[in-house]
């Protein structure tokens, strides 16, 4: 597999380094803790208590999850703590989510949880406690980016292993030079430390499990101090390792979606917080009332189920399902259509808000490097269009780093660049052009619900993303 000659996956020896690993009780974070322990880190397992409330018909499984996590920690002989972020989770994630729903959007709480809790509060607390790193069981990778072309070195392999003896890269003041040994099966090279210019969020090796969709908003600072121990593994390998090492949760049923919503579903969860408000369901073409609903905020564009339609027989029940195509939040009307080609469902462009472009100066180097030196540019391994096709002169204009979600972001590239975009977790990557706020698609796509994230990639690299307006 050929990939960039500019990106490394650093794998330090853990000796003498302290890492706090978030342990949810699931197999992924358990194996992550196991790997860190085996790599010699001083590992502390942490169960983040974000939600414990039982709701009618929804038993919150947090105590079982906590016990599962702790059992693994004990088995590994690592310290284990429970960090209570319940209040913060409620204020930053649940409140945000409810507010977005009230506005008629369909937010993604997992994206927010990673931004505000796991890679912020958990990260900050861990650093205060003397951590060198935090780690999670996410399927993602952290790549280190450098520029070897000026050294005249040539690489053909990607699997570099970082130096055992070196302290972490950030320990050095920026600009200081320190030698780093980078090994690959064929050669050992001495690189200068300041060649590593930034850390990249990269897609997991396991294409099915890649979770960068949920991670695109985490801060650069946290990412630099983050280890994703299983990012280079396939899920079956993770499970197999758990079995081999006798971790009891190798067979644990995977939790899906937002933990506290559980099996019951978002609509029932929302009804605990948002009052039912009956309203009309109208056919969008005719404005005819076809039925009634429990509140427009509970419905999502594209939804087919849960519509109480009782229109004229034969008209409604002709075998063709109605879709939600639009919502009128102020007047509480849900518009539906049977027309699969309805203009509301299909679009060839999407406007994004709260756009985040990952990386700081190095990102600019990355972009401009691609334009100026096409020969060393990154080549996507999955046949995605590469950025090098487009000059990206105006990239400096875009706001870099992580904006607060409430701030909106209006800068544009002078010219749209080619990227690929994921509109849902595990959805296929779609080629698109992006001008800093808008995505342009060659073929029309089904419009995702507003409030969901569009996450941008260049091949393996997660460039950032935004919230669909």
């Amino acid at each position: 597999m050929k990939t960039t000659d500019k990106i490394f996956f650093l794998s330090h020896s853990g000796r003498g380094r302290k890492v706090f690993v978030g342990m949810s009780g699931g197999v992924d974070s358990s194996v992550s803790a196991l790997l860190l322990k085996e790599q010699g880190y001083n590992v502390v397992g942490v169960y983040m208590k974000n939600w414990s409330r039982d709701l009618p018909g929804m038993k919150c499984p947090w105590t079982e999850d906590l016990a599962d996590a702790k059992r693994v920690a004990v088995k590994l002989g690592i310290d284990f703590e429970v960090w209570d972020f319940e209040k913060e989770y409620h204020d930053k994630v649940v409140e945000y989510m409810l507010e977005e729903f009230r506005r008629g959007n369909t937010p993604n709480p997992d994206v927010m949880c990673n931004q505000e809790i796991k890679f912020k509060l958990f990260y900050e607390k861990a650093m205060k406690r003397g951590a060198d790193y935090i780690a999670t069981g996410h399927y993602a990778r952290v790549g280190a980016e450098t520029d070897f072309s000026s050294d005249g070195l040539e690489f053909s392999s990607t699997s570099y292993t970082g130096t055992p003896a070196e302290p972490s890269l950030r320990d050095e003041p920026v600009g200081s030079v320190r030698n780093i040994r980078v090994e690959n099966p064929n050669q050992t090279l001495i690189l200068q430390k300041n060649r590593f210019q930034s850390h990249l969020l990269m897609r997991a090796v396991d294409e099915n499990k890649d979770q960068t969709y949920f991670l695109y908003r985490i801060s650069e600072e946290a990412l630099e101090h983050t280890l994703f121990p299983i990012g280079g593994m396939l899920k079956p390998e993770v499970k197999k390792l758990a079995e081999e090492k006798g971790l009891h949760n190798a067979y644990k049923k995977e939790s899906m979606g937002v933990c506290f919503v559980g099996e019951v579903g978002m609509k029932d969860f929302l009804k605990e917080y948002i009052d039912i408000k009956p309203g009309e369901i109208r056919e969008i073409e005719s404005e005819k009332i076809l039925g009634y609903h429990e509140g427009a905020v509970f419905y999502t564009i594209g939804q087919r189920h849960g519509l109480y339609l009782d229109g004229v027989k034969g008209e409604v029940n002709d075998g063709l399902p109605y879709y939600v195509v639009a919502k009128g939040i102020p007047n509480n009307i849900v518009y539906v259509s049977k027309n699969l080609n309805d203009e509301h469902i299909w679009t060839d462009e999407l406007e994004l808000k709260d756009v985040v472009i990952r990386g700081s100066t190095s990102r600019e180097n990355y972009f401009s490097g691609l334009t100026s030196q096409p020969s060393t540019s990154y080549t996507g391994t999955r046949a995605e269009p590469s950025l090098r096709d487009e000059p990206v002169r105006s990239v400096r204009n875009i706001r870099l780093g992580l904006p607060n979600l409430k701030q909106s972001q209006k800068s544009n590239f002078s010219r749209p660049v080619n990227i690929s975009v994921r509109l849902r977790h595990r959805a296929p990557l779609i080629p698109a052009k992006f001008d800093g706020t808008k995505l342009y698609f060659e073929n029309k796509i089904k419009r995702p619900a507003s409030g969901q994230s569009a996450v941008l990639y260049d091949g393996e690299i997660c460039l950032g993303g935004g919230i669909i307006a």
Partner: protein
Amino acid sequence: MIYLDHAAATPVSERVFEAMKSYFSVDFFNPSAAYLPAKKVAADYENAKAMIGHAIGAKANDIVITAGATEANNLALNVTTSPILFLVTEHDSVRKVAEQYGGEAIAVDKNGRILLEDLKSKITDETMLISVSLVNNELGVIQPLSEIAAIIRDIRFDRLKRGIKTPLYLHSDASQAMNLLDVNVARLGVDLMTLNAAKVYGPKGVGALYVAHGVKLQPLTRGGGQENGLRSGTENVPGVVGFATAIAEAKEHINGNRKKYAAWRKILLSELHDYELINKKHALDNFVVLCYNGIDAERLVFLLEEKGIYVSTGAACAASKGVRSHVLVAIGLSDEEIAGSLRLTMGETNTEEQIREAAKTINEVVAKERARVTG
């Protein structure tokens, strides 16, 4: 396997299992049906209830069968909607119900025994029900029920003298008691008492509430009017037959059990190292609650699990909720002491050899964990 969590669950004994079998598929008839085989089942059921009653000095008619002790407690507390007085160390199936109606907790001393003065000071003319378990499920502490009953008798007398009609009842959850104590409702002076098959080597999901004459309960479950209208639903014949057999068996073993567990408790206390005993006084001999200072007992549970020894921290229920045990808080333990507390409850599955083996392994595991913690 060395199982030291008999306060959480007991295996169904062979005799119980045998007694139950035919009622699942041979004598399966609905006791309410008209034909003779069903009437025989109804008679067996009544006989089983009589056996349960007999074990506590009551009649079949005083017994309401429920689906477990939690339901029996809920039913007992449903006697009134006025504030209930309950011991602060009660199980959640009493505490949560009592708190719903603004109940008030009665304090305990450092041994977990009721403070009778506190009880007296909290009884008002509106008080209708006092709930105090016979044996606490986390500590094994035995409460002086007859002393409480004596206080209640005095108050009843005083109320009548002053022309106050409000009754005052004593309820006791005796779920944990039947293996070692000779329980008799008249001697204890209780008006309502909860029993649990699952703690006496009977089946789970079967309990009973003893209801003294004259106590007017409100049903929680309505329907066909079974159990004197207090608990509708087709009778759980195998469960009740199993319960009756189990409680009779327990009764036969009480004297032997007392000697056996007293000896084993001594073995544990002398062979274990570096612990602090929490339930020093007034406790059932099969309960040994220890504290290992500076050690997280939950880790010990998982470490011992790997060695095939099953124990619990505090009560299984409290630990699994991820909260500090309210019982251990009530007897004045610090957070660290609570975190280091281990509950060992011995039972029929154990042998003396196992007890010695367990002590040895616990010592090893604790020493290893202590070494890990101190680095």
